[in-house]
């Protein structure tokens, strides 16, 4: 199929402009990495750069965290409508309100409008970053016990932070006054600088190629993604496929938060309907529409050719139905900080499971089951005499799914693979604790023809009295296996001697007490009885799998001992064992 040339631009020029736009996104993201002070921005890469057109359609996006990159369109769309006719060259805006297109309050969008030489609004350069505090009742931006959005922090539906090139001192003062972090405004200015850089570069491109060619490129690249995504959909069998996924409980203990997903493949379009998902009004597990939408697209994008440009074209192929009032599209005012993750990521699980009925080879849930960030704080680090607050961003491994042909590997799913986590050595410098280990757990990966990645056991011992917040999921409803693969192992978290059943808030650990967190494994793919017995033997050598589990889960009989270095595969006994189970 040949795509028609788009008015205003030939495809060669469009290819060049598209590539330049992707580079501008990269430059914006890099600007933040270089200039921000907060670790989550300068180390974790949790900054997501996008270019949108005047109507808020996604034209290009860059490195970052997929579901967040994809969720940055709606706040811009709202701002564009709100300030219709009142946006000027040199303006830079900020927005973080979950009820005006955002995900949760810590995710702050900063964006700058870009105009053509005649003064018509053409594009937005946008950069979204996660900030460490949002004001509100609790430090850290994650008040998972909040009963409403107002106790989570301050909402900024849209503000002009810079107007016609001049920073608004009043706005900066207000925002500074509503954050606990001394570096907040510095990080915000880093975002402003990035948005200004993006706007300048886009203005240069408009000047060089002309507004018609740039607008034509936006139409062309969206059409290109639409075409390629819809062509893939057209090869999928028509029909309706459903999945039900549950979160163990919300932080308040309401159990079995339900995500119901019904996907209809109709020719080259998808209808994705979440009607039937949890509508209990008293739960505290709410994913905003923008967040739900981002998770839908991020999971779908992992099912198709990775080279399809990630832009509005994906949204064009989907009729997304999320009834208002359900846990995936809450009424204004519900708390959302923990819901961004749960049931937010379970949206992706539901898509993967539903689609695995027709596309098993590509399906691989891209979710993480971390509950909430592990926050630990205290009044006095004995080494410095100062108080401390540890956001708990250290490396730990868990919930990495297998996909056909590839065992789950590494510490996090690919879709979270840009989140570079903190190290033991640095965090021990910063906070008064000692890490006792975080090794893989044997037999934690979901058995399958391809094995889920192992979870890990993370043990942190405190060196001074320390308070902790932790919400733990994945205890009963564990990370899903696909196509006959088994689920990963459960999460089990002890705070001192106490097992965390749902969530703890402000529990005191005395010096020498431990947080002992077993993170669950990833789901397996395919029938474990079909796994190559040699691969199981290798897994036993490497203690990903025990001799006992080799037999129990895989029907593979291994003789000898690892200690004595005499492990061997008993092929005959394995064949017999597997035959007896067929």
């Amino acid at each position, binding site marked *: 199929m*040949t795509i028609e040339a788009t008015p205003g631009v030939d495809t060669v020029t469009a*290819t*060049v402009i598209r*590539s330049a736009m*992707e580079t501008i996104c990269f430059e914006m993201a*890099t*600007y933040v990495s270089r*200039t921000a*002070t*907060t*670790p989550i921005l300068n*180390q974790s890469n949790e900054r997501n750069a996008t270019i949108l057109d005047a109507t808020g359609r996604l034209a290009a996006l860059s490195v970052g965290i997929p579901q967040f990159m994809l969720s940055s369109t709606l706040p811009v769309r709202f701002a564009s409508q709100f300030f219709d006719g009142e946006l000027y060259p040199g303006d830079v805006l900020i927005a973080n309100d979950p009820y005006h297109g955002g995900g949760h309050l810590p995710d702050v969008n900063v964006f700058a409008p870009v105009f053509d030489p005649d003064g018509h609004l053409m594009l937005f350069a946008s950069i979204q970053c996660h900030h460490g505090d949002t004001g509100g009742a609790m430090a850290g931006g994650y008040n998972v016990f909040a009963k409403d959005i107002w106790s989570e922090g301050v909402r900024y539906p849209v503000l002009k932070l810079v107007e016609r090139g001049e920073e608004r001192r009043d706005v900066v003062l207000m925002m500074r006054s509503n954050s606990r972090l*001394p*570096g*907040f*405004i*510095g990080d915000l*200015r*880093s975002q*402003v*600088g990035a948005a200004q850089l993006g706007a300048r570069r886009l203005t240069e491109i408009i000047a060089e190629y002309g507004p018609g060619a740039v607008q034509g490129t936006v139409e062309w690249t969206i059409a*290109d993604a639409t*075409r390629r995504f819809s062509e893939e959909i057209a090869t999928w069998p028509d029909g309706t496929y459903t999945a039900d996924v549950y979160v163990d409980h919300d932080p308040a203990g309401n159990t079995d938060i339900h995500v119901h997903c019904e996907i209809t493949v109709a020719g080259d379009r998808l209808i994705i309907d979440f009607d039937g998902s949890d509508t209990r009004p008293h739960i505290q597990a709410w994913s905003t529409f923008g967040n739900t939408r981002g998770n839908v697209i991020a999971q779908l994008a*992992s099912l198709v050719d*990775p080279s399809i440009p990630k832009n509005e074209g994906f949204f064009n192929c989907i009729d997304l139905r999320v009834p208002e009032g359900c846990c995936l599209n809450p009424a204004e005012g519900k708390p959302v900080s923990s819901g961004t993750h749960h049931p937010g990521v379970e949206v992706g699980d539901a898509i993967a499971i539903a689609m695995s009925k027709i596309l098993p080879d*590509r399906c*691989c849930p891209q979710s993480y089951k971390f509950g909430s960030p592990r926050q630990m704080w205290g009044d006095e680090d004995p080494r410095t005499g100062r108080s401390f607050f540890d956001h708990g961003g250290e490396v730990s*491994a868990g919930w990495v799914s297998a*996909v*056909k*042909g*590839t*065992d789950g*590997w*590494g*510490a996090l799913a*690919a*879709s*979270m*693979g*840009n*989140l*570079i*986590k903190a*190290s033991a*050595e*640095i965090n*021990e*410098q*910063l906070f008064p604790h*000692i890490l006792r280990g*975080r*090794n*893989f757990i044997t037999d934690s990966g979901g058995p399958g023809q391809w094995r889920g990645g192992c979870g*890990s056991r993370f043990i942190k011992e405190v060196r001074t009295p320390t308070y902790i917040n932790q919400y733990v999921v994945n205890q009963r409803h564990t990370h899903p296996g696909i196509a006959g693969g088994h689920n990963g192992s459960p999460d089990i978290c002890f705070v001192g001697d106490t097992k965390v059943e749902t969530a703890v808030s402000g529990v005191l650990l005395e010096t020498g007490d431990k947080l002992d967190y077993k993170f669950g494994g990833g789901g397996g793919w395919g029938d474990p009885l079909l796994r190559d017995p040699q691969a199981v033997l290798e897994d036993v*050598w*490497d*203690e990903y799998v025990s001799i006992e589990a080799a037999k129990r889960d895989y029907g593979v009989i291994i003789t000898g001992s*690892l200690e004595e*270095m005499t492990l061997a595969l008993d092929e005959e006994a394995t064949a017999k064992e597997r035959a007896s189970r067929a």
Partner: protein
Amino acid sequence: MTGYRIGVDVGGTFTDCVVMRPDGSLLLEKAPTTPGDQSDGVVNALTQAAAAEGLSLDGLLGQTDTIVHGTTTGDNTMIQMTGAPTGLIVTRGFRDEIEFRRCYKEDIWDPSLPAPYPIARRRVRLEVDERMTAEGEIETPLDEEGVRKAAARLRAFGVTSIAISFLHSYLNHTHELRAREIVLDEYPDVEMLSLSHEVLPKPPEFERTSTTLVNAYVGPPIARYLGRLTARLAEAGYGHELLVATSSGGVATADAAARRAVATIGSGPTGGVTASAKVAGTAGLGDVVSVDMGGTSYDVCLIRDGRPEIKMDWNWFHRYCIGIPMIDIPSVGAGGGSIIWEEGGVLHVGPQSAQSQPGPVCYGRGGTEPTVTDADLVLARLEPEGFANGRMTLDVEGARAALAKVGERVGMSVEDVAAAAVKIVDANMTDAVRRVLSLAGADPRKLNLVAFGGMGGVHANMQARALGMHRVVVPAAAAGFSALGLLSANHVVDDSRGYISPIAEVDLRHLGALASELEANARAELKVANVPDDRIHLEWSLLLVYPGQTFDVSIPVEHPADVDAAVNEFHRRNAEARLIEARAQDPILRGVRLVAVGEVSQPTDLVLERATSVEPRRKRRMWIGDGWHDDVPVYDMADVRPGISINGPAAIAGPFTTVIIGSGERAEATPEGDVLIDL
């Protein structure tokens, strides 16, 4: 300087040998690279060079003062994963860092991306009881019996090279040192032992462990290779130290390179960067970007204040993190061999390449897919006759036929598809440069361009224009530029010591002790390399971060005790980057770094005779970038002398490449014969 100086650089296809005669004139020879054992190709190239000089091999080497060698043995070992069977001994609880990779994955959209090949599988990653605190105090003593058992077990698994990485060993290395003694006692014939505090004495644990593991893996093959080569050269009459290029742009003695073998990985493109820095300095170009456009890759490096950008900590090579300081030379898949293809009516160029075999269609070696070289040929930007020093005639009709096929699918004529492909590959390269510059916060409009490699001169002017640059230099010696660069590379010992302290609580005596240790080690290493004391200069830096930051910033200081000056400079740099609020926080000291440079005596520059005018050899119709031009004059590189001036559109054809000068541009030659284009 009395004798010859020789640079030998091993490339993917050819081993380049540049011989600098005592008068500064150059001789370039190339011999096919011998992948199995690169020393064969090296000796072949040297033998050819000797013959060209009318000497026997020992006649040449007997009169040679210095041989500097760039080897890709380490890179090849990592590409083919043919290193030593390697094991790892770690602090209990931290066996799996190398698999966690701080959660990094190369492709966030592709769940099928396979795991990296394991240098050390989990079964040979063994734990022992021991622990240092973050203050460097012993919290749990070393379980010596545990180390002994681990060594025995690794030996039983067939491991021949062992890496040891204990937590916080950069603060207190007594456990690593003791563990080495025990391992050597238990397993005396272990081929190599790499201790993390010696390979990369700084946090965090993943970067240090990964670097140490790679060192252990590539060390034995590199040591064997350099041992073989040193012996062959000595046998052939070479009486001095063999110097080996490292990834930080310096050279080290063969012994030092073998001990810290990881430092040779990624050293391949550094010669060209060193030479670019020199050319840019001589031509007074100020800060530049060097670009090496060859057949398959396009290597980009930012050079500010005469120095290439150095990157530490988060360098990824062959899917492993190598945290030592390396010249930052990102590479994209764009070159003369990049394939032109169509998908969905859209034209694409690269990143896949026709490689050296079969190569572009016009080489007539069986290539069927059109490449950028084919496009340039069809656009008359390359000379069909006399290519590769007259050894080759390029097949224009073959190139046209291949391009016509792609043209049909996108509805374009042969000429249009060729021009479109050139525009696209130029845009890809321009974007690559922008990405590199954005990482360093540099504005391309304030920089100039040094372009080399076989295709560098053909595409340089268009890229420089797209980036808003004003001057381009294409060196005359572009074809052997990397080997040439080796001759001006200095000895560099780049090392650091971790010392983590809030800035107000820095103990200057402790800092001084670490600095003295660094200096003593560096001087000892340079002494082995016969660098006289008066040619050593020390460049000190303090490593600083704001609370909460992980990646260190290296702040140059006159003296390691200049903590206040470092803090002021650190604040100033951050303020410049708009971090106005940053000054409210006190930085944290993270370590001290010493770059000890042993200056080699710089080669004599050959100065060419001047000329006042130059005549083109011929005129032809050519596509220049803004379209087709009739009667474009084509000059011969040999005629380009200082004093002449050429107005574009024009082309300068050399034995291995062409330099294109666009409309409105003007070219002249530097005293050394390099082509300088003003845009």
